């Protein structure tokens, strides 16, 4: 099994390499077909090298369906490189991707330096907050832009924000606010909060508490589900879990919705349908807030979904969409500035002129004060998109997208 994975990956990479070559050839043909009458001065080919730095280790999940694909995120970046190159063929721009993997929680400075040595001036980072911070200042001194697609930590956009780090991934507060707006619109304002015992579970729970205070929800009771280190999967585990969750929730007061904060995959998946009271579940299980969903087909999304499926052989996940958007943001800025000067591109992405379209029904732009990408958030169950936030009626003087997450007046970010 372990050897099968790299094999598949190699075959996949070969396929992509061929596909990239093929589209390049077609594009070159198209470019060379330009008749003499309208010929412009020969355009030199500009190369734009994008690095992809990823913390990866196989991960266990409560449901087999949630096991992340080996190329989660990476596949989205590759599809975007293909899209950028189709556009680039008309402008003499060629994009490439250097992928480097490190272990979670390991030192990433060396891996980052290696990417920069290869000439990458844009790095897509799928790293923990700690890892990302460890390279942010080095990157700034070397004139490298980082696009964060992995870390949802609000701290990276607040006290730890950096002038050269753009955040494509939504924050936990954006996700929680998106969910809270919907629950309030549904008039289901009373919530119980179940959260895991790991750091990221606590952070997600904090975001939900903040969202409750912000939008008028009531958290009537909270309970921590301790990770006692049990195996995630046992042959007859289901029988026990059914009772455990129910008993765990037995002493909770009356509520409309059960909120679950379990990013660590310890118990969340087991909550829906096993609750003490018959109540809907939302958070990291049940109705989940995310930047993308494999069933999202509104706003031209079906085109993205079918292109992704055809190229990669699987469905598109949130991290794939974040990686696609990051690479497309570089592509869009390169197209519009007609060049590869990272400083010009950086200025352009920060300017009022920049926007990127990512099948969300409106243009996406960066919040100037902390470089977070504004974006609608999808609320979905396993099979379909239930709703999209911001919900109607949540107004804002700048952009209704700024009703999600930390807004400018409350930000702790001072870009440096």
């Amino acid at each position, binding site marked *: 099994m372990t050897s099968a994975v790299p094999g598949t990956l190699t075959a996949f990479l070969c396929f992509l390499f061929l596909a990239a070559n093929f589209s390049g050839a*077609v*594009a070159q*043909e*198209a470019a060379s*077909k*330009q*008749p003499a009458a*309208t010929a412009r001065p020969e355009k030199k080919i500009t190369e734009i090298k994008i690095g992809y730095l990823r913390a990866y280790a196989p991960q266990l999940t409560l449901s087999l369906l949630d096991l992340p694909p080996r190329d989660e995120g990476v596949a989205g970046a590759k599809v975007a490189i293909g*899209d950028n190159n*189709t*556009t680039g063929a*008309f*402008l003499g721009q060629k994009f490439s991707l250097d992928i480097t993997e490190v272990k979670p929680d390991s030192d990433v400075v060396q891996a980052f330096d290696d990417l920069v040595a290869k000439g990458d001036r844009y790095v897509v980072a799928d790293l923990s907050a700690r890892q990302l911070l460890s390279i942010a200042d080095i990157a700034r001194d070397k004139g490298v832009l980082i696009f964060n697609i992995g870390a949802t930590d609000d701290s990276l956009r607040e006290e730890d924000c950096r002038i050269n780090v753009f955040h494509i991934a939504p924050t936990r507060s954006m996700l929680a606010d998106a969910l809270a707006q919907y629950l309030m619109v549904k008039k289901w304002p009373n919530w119980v909060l179940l959260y895991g015992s790991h750091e990221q579970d606590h952070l997600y729970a904090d975001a939900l508490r903040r969202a409750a205070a912000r939008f008028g929800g009531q958290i009537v009771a909270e309970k921590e589900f301790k990770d006692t280190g049990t195996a995630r999967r046992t042959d007859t585990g289901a029988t026990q879990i059914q009772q455990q969750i129910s008993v765990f929730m037995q002493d909770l007061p009356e509520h409309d919705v059960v909120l679950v904060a379990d990013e660590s995959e310890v118990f969340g998946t087991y909550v829906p349908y096993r609750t003490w009271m018959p109540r809907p579940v939302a958070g990291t299980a049940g109705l989940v807030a995310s930047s993308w969903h494999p069933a999202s087909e509104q706003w*031209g999304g079906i*085109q993205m979904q*079918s*292109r992704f499926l*055809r190229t990669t052989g699987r469905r598109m996940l949130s991290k794939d969409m974040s990686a696609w958007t990051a690479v*497309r943001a570089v592509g*869009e800025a390169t*197209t*519009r500035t007609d060049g590869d000067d990272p400083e010009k591109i950086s200025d352009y992405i920060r300017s009022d002129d920049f*926007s*990127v*379209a990512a099948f969300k029904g*409106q*243009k996406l732009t960066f919040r100037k004060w902390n470089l977070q990408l504004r974006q609608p958030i999808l609320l979905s169950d396993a099979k379909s998109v239930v709703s999209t936030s911001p919900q109607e009626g949540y107004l804002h003087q700048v*952009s*209704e997208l700024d009703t999600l997450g930390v807004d400018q007046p409350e930000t702790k970010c001072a870009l440096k």
Partner: protein
Amino acid sequence: MQGRACALAFLATGLMAGPASAYTAYVSNEKDNTMTAVDTATMKVIKTVDVGQRPRGITISPDGKFVYLCASDDDTVQIIDTSSLDVVGDLPSGPDPELFVLSPDGKTLYIANEDDNLVTVVDVASKAVLSEIPVGVEPEGMGVSPDGKTMVNTSETTSMAHFIDTQSHEVTDNVLVDTRPRFAEFKPDGSQVWVSAEVGGTVSVIDNAKRQVVKKIQFAINGLRAETIQPVGIAITADGKKAYIALGPANHVAVVNAETYEVEKYILVGQRVWHLAFTPDQKTLITTNGNSNDITFIDTATDEPVQSLTVGQQPWGVAISPK
């Protein structure tokens, strides 16, 4: 209130003075896989017929005998006999055809294949694919110059208008426009191409001789968020003086002075207005309103909406018989 009554009275007199000629409008209904035929004089539905899956792009032959319809999910272009409203054949289209344009002589169909980054060129008489032209990512908008010599395709993710020589089937120029260009429409004198950008929220006016953007038209409607203004369909009057632009979820059609590029008026129509077409006498403009399942008749003399008519589910495109 009084002003409105006056306008209505004026309108009524107008109608009595010279009754509008009867044309037939054909509306593709994206969601329920039907096409509705509408009498433009009585503003009543003549008949709704079943067509292929997810009908979107729709156009009519210059002699008015056949309607061509993109049945996107069936990967085909259907030919509908306008006398019987029966599907009488189909044309090869490549996968997922969404929009197309017929050459002015009615002989050639240019089809945008969103999934394949191609424009497919089809000879209508022989039903043969003449060429497949590589363009940008997610090709959509299609326009052809009045002399038939130049075709323009817009690609949504690439954000370009690709100018294609219809003799050589080669891309000759690429013009960057704003994000997600959806539609391309030549001015009747062929001097300009107008390209709408759905997500960018603008219409770029491209000089056809220079192949450069000479003007970007912006829109603003009181009380509406800028993000809801998403220009899609464009119709320009035969005298080239006025353009109508469908603004999607903004539920309005913008009336633009095509000489000064000033927006003169916003006409409230139905929800998510997508495409629009003139009757051949140019007296009436019909818009398709996807989310309210209706079409709106606009009197072009007053630029007032006259009536809305329920058609099928999610009306997408509209084509009107030449006589």
